[in-house]
Every structure is written in C-alpha cells, then in structure tokens.
C-alpha cells in the first residue's frame, strides 16, 4: 500500500515537471508577451521597458527555474487581459468549478445507481432493454447540446431556471459558495444536469454489469437458497458489493466531470476555471493558460493517486472497463 503511494507520488511529480516545462515553454518561448500586455496603442519605448521588466533577456534556464519557483508558491505572474495576479484569478474560480463537478457527480450517482439496479434486477424486461438503449443515447449526447436544449426549455420557454452564471454566492473564507442561496441552487441545476447526463448512462451501465456479476456469485445464490426476500438480496447483498467499484469509479468520473465542466461552463457562462481557461485561450493570455496547465496537472495527479489507492483495495479489472466504456 505504502509502496504504491510512494510510486504514484513520484509519478505525479514527474507529470507535474513535464507539464511545467511545457507551460514554461508556452509562456516564454512562444507568443509575444509584450504585445499581448500592451495592446494596440503601445509605443516602442513602452515595449522596451516592459520587455526588461519581464526579464525577457535572461537565459531560459534561469527563467524556467524562476517560473517553477513561482509556480510552487502559486505565483504565475499577471494575467494579460485581467491585469490581476493569475493565482488570485484561479483561486477565485476554483469553488465554482468544484461545486459544479461535485453536484454533477452526486446527481449522476443518484440517478445512475437506481437505474442500473433496476436494469439488473429486471434484466429481461423491456424496461431494462429500453434503459440500455437509452443509456447509449445518453452517452451520445454531447454536453453542449444538452445544455443548449435545457436552456431553450427551462429558461426561455418555461422561464423556470436562470440560463447563466451562479446566482448569488456566499463567502465562507475564500471559498464562495452558491449552495447556500436559493438563486445559487437554481443556477446550479441545469449546468450540473447537462454534465451529469452522460455520466448517468455510464454509471447505470456499470452498476448493471456489476450487479449482474454479483447476482450470479455463489454468495448471492446462497442467500437466495436461504430464502431471503429478493428485495433484500438485491439491495443489501448485491448492491453493497457493487458499491466499492462505484466509489472507485466515481474518482475517475470526477476527473471527467471537471474536464467536461469546461464545456458546460462555456454554455452556461458559469464563472469557473473552464470559462477562465477558454477566455484565456481566446485572448492568448499565456500566464493564465500556463497556470491552468499546472493546476490541471496537480489536480488530475491527485485524483489519480486517490483512484489508484482505491483500486488497490478494490478491483484492478475495473480500470479497463471504464476505459472501454467512456468516450
């Protein structure tokens, strides 16, 4: 267990180093930071002054080390477009993305598990096969298409839910949450749902497959033979045994949700990291892009360590299944 942890942590360090080199190359060797910062009306003198301030004339290894040093302390310089420290920008946006991704995860579990259990228990009924076909359609619905349809239905036609933003937020320390206000919760529903839909389908399929497997084990057969009520077998025996893989897979799902959050944030103008990143790409705001890369490397390495630890206690075969099942 410990050796896995050590090995995975070394792996994470490697990932972060590789990404940091890429991020550094991005900010300093490509693009034209001076023109990016100063914009259209700058004079040549302005440009020279700024180039000096950005230390563009020092050897690259020195600049890389200072970049890495800054990154470790959360300093990525000043955003070209927002004119604010990039670290602050990211920090502000983290709560929005995390709340969105976790809500979507909970939503997809809350819908996906019952559906999967149902499909496994009534495996031969038409409802079950309809659910399976439905899950294929679910997996095939691009996040942005779902988002657009939801806005069309619930914001424009019915006027029930807000179509953009996070609503009102409450600050708890540096964490601004939308979960404590009514308008914040309403604003969360559609983005979370559009993210969750494809994951619902995946969870449902996974739960069904696991349940089917467990239902055929001797353990369940024995329970059946003992004359336990089917409902009790299904829920307490079979489902409980599928929970560990589900929890493990949730870690991976969370990663996917954070990645797809970029899309949902674009559709719903959700002020999270993804939207910030897309705007940065549009403006070629290199410090923000670089910082986003570093943050992503860190976040996903962390997720991976956790997931791998969970696998170590659960079932290593799962990973292949998820890789095959997720598109």
């Amino acid at each position, binding site marked *: 267990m410990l050796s896995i942890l050590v090995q995975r942590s070394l792996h994470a360090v490697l990932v972060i180093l590789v990404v940091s080199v890429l991020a550094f190359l991005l900010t300093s060797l490509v693009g034209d930071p001076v023109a990016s910062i*100063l914009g259209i009306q700058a004079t040549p003198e302005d440009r020279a002054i700024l180039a000096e*301030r950005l230390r563009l004339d020092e050897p690259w290894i020195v600049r890389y080390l200072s970049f890495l040093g800054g990154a470790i302390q959360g300093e990525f310089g000043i955003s070209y477009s927002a*004119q604010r420290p990039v670290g602050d920008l990211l920090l502000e946006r983290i709560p929005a993305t995390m709340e969105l991704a976790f809500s979507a995860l909970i939503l997809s579990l809350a819908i996906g598990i019952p559906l999967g259990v149902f499909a496994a228990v009534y495996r031969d009924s038409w409802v079950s096969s309809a659910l399976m076909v439905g899950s294929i359609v679910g997996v095939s619905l691009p996040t942005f298409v779902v988002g657009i349809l939801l806005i069309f239905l619930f914001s424009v036609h019915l006027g029930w839910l807000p179509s953009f933003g996070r609503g009102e937020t409450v600050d708890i320390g540096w964490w601004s949450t939308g979960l404590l206000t009514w308008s914040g919760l309403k604003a969360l529903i559609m983005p979370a749902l559009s993210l969750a839909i494809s994951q619902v389908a995946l969870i449902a399929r996974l739960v069904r497959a696991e349940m089917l497997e467990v239902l055929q084990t001797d353990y369940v057969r024995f329970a059946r033979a003992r004359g336990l009520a089917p409902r009790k077998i299904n829920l307490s025996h079979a489902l409980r045994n599928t929970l560990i893989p589900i929890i493990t897979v949730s870690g991976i799902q969370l990663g996917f949700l954070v990645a797809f959050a970029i899309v949902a944030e674009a559709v719903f103008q959700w002020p999270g990291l993804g939207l910030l990143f897309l705007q940065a790409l549009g403006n070629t705001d290199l410090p923000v892009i670089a910082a986003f890369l570093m943050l992503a490397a860190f976040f996903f390495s962390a997720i991976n360590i956790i997931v791998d630890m969970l696998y170590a206690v659960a079932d290593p075969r799962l990973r292949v299944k998820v890789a095959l099942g997720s598109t």
Partner: protein
Amino acid sequence: MLKHTIMATATAVALAMAAPASAETLRFAGTTPALTMDPHATNDFVTTAIFRQVYDSVVGLSLDMELVPSIATSWEYLGDNTWRFHIREGVTFHDGQPLTAEDVAFSIMRQKDSRFYTSLFGDVAEATAVDDLTVDVVSNNPDPILPRKMSRMFVMSRAWLEANDSLEIPDLGAEGAEGFTVRNANGTGPMALTEHDPSVRTSFVRNEDYWGDFPGNVDEAVYSPIGSGPTRVAALLSGEVQLIIDLPLQDVERLENTDGFHVEQEPQLLFMQLEMDGTRDVALDTWTNDGEPITDNPFRDVRVRQAIAHAVDADLIVDRVMRGDARVVGIPSVPGFGGYQADLDQPWGYDADAARALLAEAGYPDGFITQLNCPLERYVNTEEICRAVAGMLDRVGIEVRVNGMVWPEFARMLVNGPTSSFHLIGNGANSFDSQDTFTATMMTRDADANEGFFNWALYSNETVDQVSRELPVTFDEARREELYRMGMEAARDTISAVYLHQPMITWGMQDTVEAPIRGDATLTLQNVTIGE
C-alpha cells in the same frame, strides 16, 4: 407666471413623494467586462462607458453628443496654445471631499501620460491650477479641438489617490500587488462604485450629492459581462437582467415581437471599412490566379480599389447581414462627427460589370487571389460581413480567403506590423471629430512622429496629408470646413478604403425600462427610468 411656477413645483414635489419608496435597481449586461475602474488606465470603450458613471469628464457630452458643461462650466482659448477651463463650484467626490482645480490639473497630467491616451493628449504640455476654480492647459502646438478631447478626460481626487498610494497609473504587467484604483473608485459622477469584480459584476449606488441633473430613478445598478450573445439574450428574456447592450441583430425582431420588451437603436459613431494596401510594392498574402505569389501590389492601383468598391454591394450587406440595422456610408465620416459633410456622403454604388471592366483595365482581367483579414469580435457581425464580401468579390474574379482572427490577435497583427494588405476594420474618431480620422487613420503613416498611427493599410495621399497637417492648427471655422471637404473628397476619389456602413447601437430592454442611448454607446444611468 409666478403661479405657474408654484404649481409646477407643487406637482414636482407631489410626484417625488408619490415615487415608490423601494429602491429601483437596474441590472444590465454587456459583452465584455469593465477591465479596470482606473479611468486613465485604459481607453477600451466598453470600460469607458462603465466608468463614466462614476467619473465625470472635464467637458461633458449631452445625449446628442454635443459638448456641455460638466466639471468645467465654460472654457475659452487664451492664445499661445493655451485653453482656460472654469471649474464648477461645490462639486464633491463620493468620499465627501470637495473637488478643486488642483484635482483637475493633476488628473490631466496623470491621464496625459497614460500610454492609452498619447494620441489624444500627447501634445498637452502642462496643466496648472491658476486659482481654486480655474485650470489652464498648455499644449505644444495650437489645438482647436482640445475641449472636444476633454470629453475623454476624467477627473480623479488627488488626495484620495495619494492616500491609497495610487498617484501613478497602475502599471500593466508589473509584478506584485494590483493597483488600488483597479477595483476602487472615487469620482464625482452620478453613481458611486460599490463593488467591482471585473469578470463577474460591477455595482453602483446613486450619488445623492450629484451636482448635475438626475432625471431618472435608478438607485442602484449592477452590470454583468456576458460574453455569449445567446446567453445575454436569455438573461434578458428570463428577467435576470432588465437591459442588455449589444443585442445581437438576429434577435431584434424576436425581442420586438415579445411582450414586455422593446429595442432601442442609435447610430454608432463608427463606420466599417475595408482597408487596402496603399504603399507596399508587393501585396502581402496575395497570389496570382494560378496560386503563385504575386509580384506586385494590385491594391495600389486606384482602378483595382474602385473595382472593389463597385463589386461590394454595401446595400445588400446592410439589408441581409446587418438586417437593415445600419446605414451605408460614402465618406470617411458619419453624422455626429465634427466635420461631417452630408452632401458628399454618396455611396459608390454596386456595379459588378464596371468592377470587372476596371479590373481588366488595371491588368487583372482574371482577377487575383488574396486574403481578407477579419476581426471576429468587437464589431457587429464581422465574420458574416467578411464572408459576404468574399462572395461578392468572387463574382468579379477576385478570390478571397477569409482569415478570421480574434480581436487581440488582429490587433497584434496591426500593432506589431502592420502586416495586412486587406482587412476589415471599424473606423471612428477618438474625439468624435473627423480631424482625428484624418490625422490618425488616413495620414501617411509615420509611427514615430505619431502621424497616421492607425493607418494600418498604409494609405497615402498628398491632399489628405496636407489636410491632416493643416486641420489641427486651424481655428478658422470656414477654413476648417474647406479642409474637411477637400480631404474627404480626395479620400473618397482615391478610395482611402471601401466604406461599408455605420452600424446601429442596439439595446434590448424590458418595457418598464426607459434608457436613452448616447452615440458613444454609453448608458447614462442618471437618465434611466424604471417604471412599474
């Protein structure tokens, strides 16, 4: 007469008392965020429109874009390159401190050094407070339109800046803490800033001690930037905001037909044009019909320029791409600019046959291939304009590849080069006087001398240059008029650029909201009324 006045006053008081006790809040949205609240740190027009609520300019602008007294109640030219501005008495900043001539002089000196205002105020040498209510501004050269430029000069409090360590304009790209003035403001305007979170919201509260008129009833206002057009419209339709600036043109009809909403439009003080390389020996990104790199510059030939002007059907673009929400333009000026000449404003007219003939005459009977650089945002429907233009030129034999670029990239291409032989761009005038159009966008480009700095396609014409040199030092109105006409005719005849159209500023709002549009696309919150 006296009785009438008393009656009127009594009615006004009654109305005031009948007004709803609850605070009226205007929630409005636009495309881009207000970048900073420091009025001297940017010239971005969206940001300017926002901080104008908080900071007054030295000279004001009426809703018709006429110069009106503001912080300065009157101004006169003293000779010797010196303008005198008389400062309003009894104006206080939002923090309660009184405004002095010293604050005005200091603000002028602070803003003139801003890199964003060198083209407007680079020539100002000195601003001094003569006494408590008088400021003299001395330029290096005579400047007949300085008062007009002063409508872009914003007054800050020296004491407040000093107390917050912000006498210098917060430096862009600098390491360390951000400037205090980026998120905080203390002006004399109709609204005071309560919160500025650039990418999320900017909030205002009414300045109860405002020195000027406040005909509207807005007590609080919140601006949110919503980049995506459809999301912005959705926000309006669902009632999350009551007003959006930049209503996408395709949604105008729908909104007008939706109960409870209406659309306001006003011509924008800007016109779109296609700029063509006027100087280079070899045009960039241009090929012969066989796809070989071209060895000359077709755009330098006035017949090719005329051919393009005739091949592009500006009326059809206005009708279809702009959905009628624009006006075809025939000279490099629009109504509302100083120096606009209505009788000269005659479009070239669409004539594909003439275009083909002109091309043949110029030695390009089979046309050529070129690239149209196209900014993807900032102006309305640019991408579609570019593609329509490409289709139209295709019909007379000029194959056009549309090269769409996001605004920062487009701007970089121009600033660092310029390296474009053919592009679409909006042309305006910083000071709303055509003089600016001449000196900044049409004069032969010499970036070091700050001449024709925005003349990105390197157009060059002797008459226009002469006009550009003479206008800034000419005070005589008749002579100025003559110069404007001379310059505009020359520009028009030599096709300084293919002028397309003047777009409309288009806002959508709830029927309960009355908000007049000013030509500089500013929502003047003091003039907004929210009804039941």
